[in-house]
């Protein structure tokens, strides 16, 4: 019990401190190398450093490697490898824009360590009704899950602080849920995700000093997916991610194909004269979560961010309720 408490405190502290301390240096380095992009939601288009993925990965690797030194768990090893491979895919996308289908396929390959190390259980657990054993289908689910969670988190990375703030809420909801369903070791392994997101939020929040980029968003999303599989909490994880899932769903059902946001011909939101966000009148523009949020009235970027966080808190509460429902059978 004592070593678990020590491990919990240690991995949480390492994850937070590494990202908190490393990100300012990363911002300086990126700015010096002119690796900056325009923030289109600011008057005049401020230039912001990108990508923040390297500091996010450093926090995750440092904390998870320490955890691996404690327990030598193949579950932790699978999380480390899957997250690292997803980071490489994201970094390649940050450097050179990858095609619409290439990224999901490369992310699917990131899930291979989970399959090779056998760190999954082919039982899909549902609240109230128990579980279903789907050996063949589950392998396909593992392969699909990482691209889905990776791209879902990436798709919510649209405004200052949203991706990191959203992931902080969703990750801690997942950790609490893992404790509720008594998967204590994976719950400890999931803590770095929440603390890394929280530390990165400090620099990503409005007005952003750094953007996570694809390397950051895919790293967070892939780690989230890997924890969901290894911790056997796939359904709970999906519930905690619902606002981001809805964003992807709305986007895909309006554009009807897999494309990057940057390939869009018309934007879902526009700016008012005082630089608030308002829904576009363009009928060809995709429907997104942000477009729905600002449909009634124009809002500042900060207001939209907090509205998304409230939605994240709501789905986090649903996820925790779902975790409690796992022990109830009708």
């Amino acid at each position, binding site marked *: 019990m004592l070593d678990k408490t020590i491990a919990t405190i240690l991995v949480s502290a390492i994850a937070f401190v590494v990202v908190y301390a490393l990100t300012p240096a990363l911002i300086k380095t990126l700015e010096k190398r002119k690796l900056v992009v325009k923030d289109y939601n600011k008057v005049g288009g401020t230039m912001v450093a990108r990508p923040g993925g390297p500091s996010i990965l450093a926090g995750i690797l440092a904390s998870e490697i320490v955890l691996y030194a404690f327990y030598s768990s193949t579950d932790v090893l699978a999380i480390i490898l899957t997250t690292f491979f997803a980071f490489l895919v994201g970094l390649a996308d940050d450097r050179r824009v990858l095609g619409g289908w290439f990224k999901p396929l490369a992310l699917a390959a990131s899930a291979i360590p989970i399959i090779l190390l056998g760190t999954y259980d082919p039982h*899909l657990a*549902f*609240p*109230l*009704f*128990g*579980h*279903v*054993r*789907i*050996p*063949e*289908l589950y392998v396909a689910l593992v392969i699909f899950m990482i691209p889905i969670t990776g791209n879902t988190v990436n798709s919510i990375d649209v405004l200052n602080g949203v991706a990191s703030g959203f992931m902080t809420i969703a990750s801690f909801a997942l950790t609490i849920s893992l404790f509720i369903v008594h998967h204590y070791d994976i719950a400890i392994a999931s803590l770095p995700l929440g603390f890394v997101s929280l530390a990165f939020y400090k620099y990503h929040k409005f007005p952003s000093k750094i953007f996570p980029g694809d390397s950051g968003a895919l790293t967070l999303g892939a780690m989230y997916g890997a924890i969901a599989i290894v911790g056997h909490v796939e*359904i709970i994880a*999906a*519930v905690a991610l*619902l*606002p981001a*899932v*809805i964003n992807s*769903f*709305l986007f895909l*059902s309006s554009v009807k194909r897999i494309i990057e946001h940057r390939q869009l011909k018309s934007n879902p939101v526009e700016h008012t004269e005082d630089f608030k966000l308002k*829904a576009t009148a363009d009928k060809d523009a995709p*429907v997104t*979560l942000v*477009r*729905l*949020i600002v*449909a*009634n009235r124009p809002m500042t970027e900060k207001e939209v961010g907090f*509205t998304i966080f*409230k*939605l994240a808190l*709501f*789905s986090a509460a*649903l996820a925790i309720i*779902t975790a409690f*429902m796992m022990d109830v059978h009708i």
Partner: protein
Amino acid sequence: MSAPIYVYVSIMWIMIVAGGGLLVTIISPIHIHGFGKFDEFLDSGVKAAIAVTLVVLWIFIMSKAKNWIFHKRIRN
């Protein structure tokens, strides 16, 4: 007001729980016999096909719910 989005999240959650119930109580107990060594393969294949159909149905229902809940907002 983001009330319709909360309603949509809640509908999605209910559909996930209900879909799980359908999978566990109706589809999971289905067993195929009489095809010898192909029994297990057919069993998995049929269950997978039903599961995929359910997912497609789930997407269809959520798409209809999206149009129903957000129709006015999107049109405006």
